[in-house]
């Protein structure tokens, strides 16, 4: 069974991430980690507050060693990389990757290393190529790769790059990704005879 959903977004991501999270049924209990590119000086807390208005899941700005718990949404803090260890998050100030910190590649690759085939990666809109290598790593480790259909994305560079780097399991319009995740993560209750 899957254990973690990772979402990466850049340009246009604020509204896309909000939309996607709002679409994910509460029956999906997997923790969700998000790397959204932001201005390094971006006020911490603002993205969390924005999302809190749109969704019911608790949203957390990750601190060092924050434990990974079901149902929660975790945000990479501005100007730190967000990494996944088994059971908890780690942060780092390593150099920017592809000009980005947080880097989607760093999040996705560490998630794949820590959780193997139990990771679902989702790449949304963006104007750079961050995330492509990370999604390929998730896929190589047996996880699931989902990419927003570039044709409907506010910026298509990022989904295009992700599709060039790996064979995605699903290429979907934004409004259908939530439903797809539901199908992946929620096993229909088997009625006992």
């Amino acid at each position, binding site marked *: 069974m899957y254990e973690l959903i990772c979402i990466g977004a850049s340009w246009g991501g604020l509204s896309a991430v909000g939309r996607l999270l709002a679409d994910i049924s509460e029956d999906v209990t997997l923790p969700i980690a998000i790397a959204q590119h932001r201005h390094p000086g971006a006020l911490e807390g603002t993205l969390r507050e924005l999302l809190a208005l749109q969704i019911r899941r608790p949203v957390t700005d990750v601190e*060092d060693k924050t434990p990974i718990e079901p149902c929660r949404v975790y945000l990479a803090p501005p100007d730190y990389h967000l*990494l996944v*260890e088994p059971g908890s998050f780690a*942060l780092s*100030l*390593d150099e920017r990757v592809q000009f980005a910190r947080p880097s989607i590649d*760093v999040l996705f690759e*560490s998630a794949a290393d820590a959780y193997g085939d139990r990771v679902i990666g989702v790449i949304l809109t963006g104007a750079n190529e961050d995330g492509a290598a990370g999604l390929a790593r998730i896929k*190589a480790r047996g996880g699931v790769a989902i990419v927003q259909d570039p044709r409907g994305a506010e910026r298509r560079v990022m989904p295009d790059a992700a599709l060039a780097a790996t064979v995605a399991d699903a290429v979907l319009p934004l409004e259908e990704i939530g439903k797809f995740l539901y199908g992946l993560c929620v096993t229909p209750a088997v009625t006992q005879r």
Partner: protein
Amino acid sequence: MTSVEPSQSARPAGGEELEDLELRLLLEGVFRRYGFDFREYAPASLRRRVWRRVHAERLGTISGLTEKLLHDEATMERLLLDLSVNVTAMFRDPTFYVAFRQKVVPVLRTHPFTRIWVAGCSTGEEVYSLAILLQEEGVYERARIYATDINESVLDRARGGVFPLEKMREYTQNYIRAGGTRAFSEYYVAAYDGAQFQRSLIENVVFAQHNLVSDRSFNEFHVIVCRNVMIYFEKKLQDHVHGLFYESLPTFGILALGHKESIRFSPFEDRYEELDNGEKLYRKVV
């Protein structure tokens, strides 16, 4: 296998356990051969940085790097630079310095003499920032700053006090937001190779190599600043370092951590009270 981007590394599917083993052997080798103990560093970012060195050396595996560095000290030095992430900035997190002015400086004024330990000072930007702040508050003369890092080459750069000119605009903004009271440009002169900061800022600074993992406390300090260093450590090692700091602080001594760090969940949580939680400033109470 010569790509420089660790991201693009072609790694055999299902090889993750082998990779873990190789990584552990490398860290063991580094420790036994050179005495640097990275065995309890947080593995996710450690693995990335080791791979970066593997590719930069044009090798294909972590074991290849192990072999090379066991026989070649220069390779070890390069890996050491990779493993100690030295990213830093002047007045990083300006609000931290505002809180330091408001909540720590008044305490310092009550002491005839203050010892401050900046642990993991990297190339010194944080030390010069603190020195500027203390000077402006009129307490620098009565203070001594002990600035330490595991990495000797960053300490050399810290002693030099030359920082990239192109950063000065950002640092000036940080300085203003940090509550600076003068013109930031008074503190440096533009030299051909960068911004040379006033030597007087480090008159009362001692730079020294110190390894938080294996070295002991070397004094008692009124204030310990250790920001963005322990995020690279595993929980157990963090607890060890917290023990070291606890021992080195008198009652009411102050501990400052990075914005994203906290002593919550550490065994020393109850020994401190929050001086300013948002800024991760704590005061030892028992």
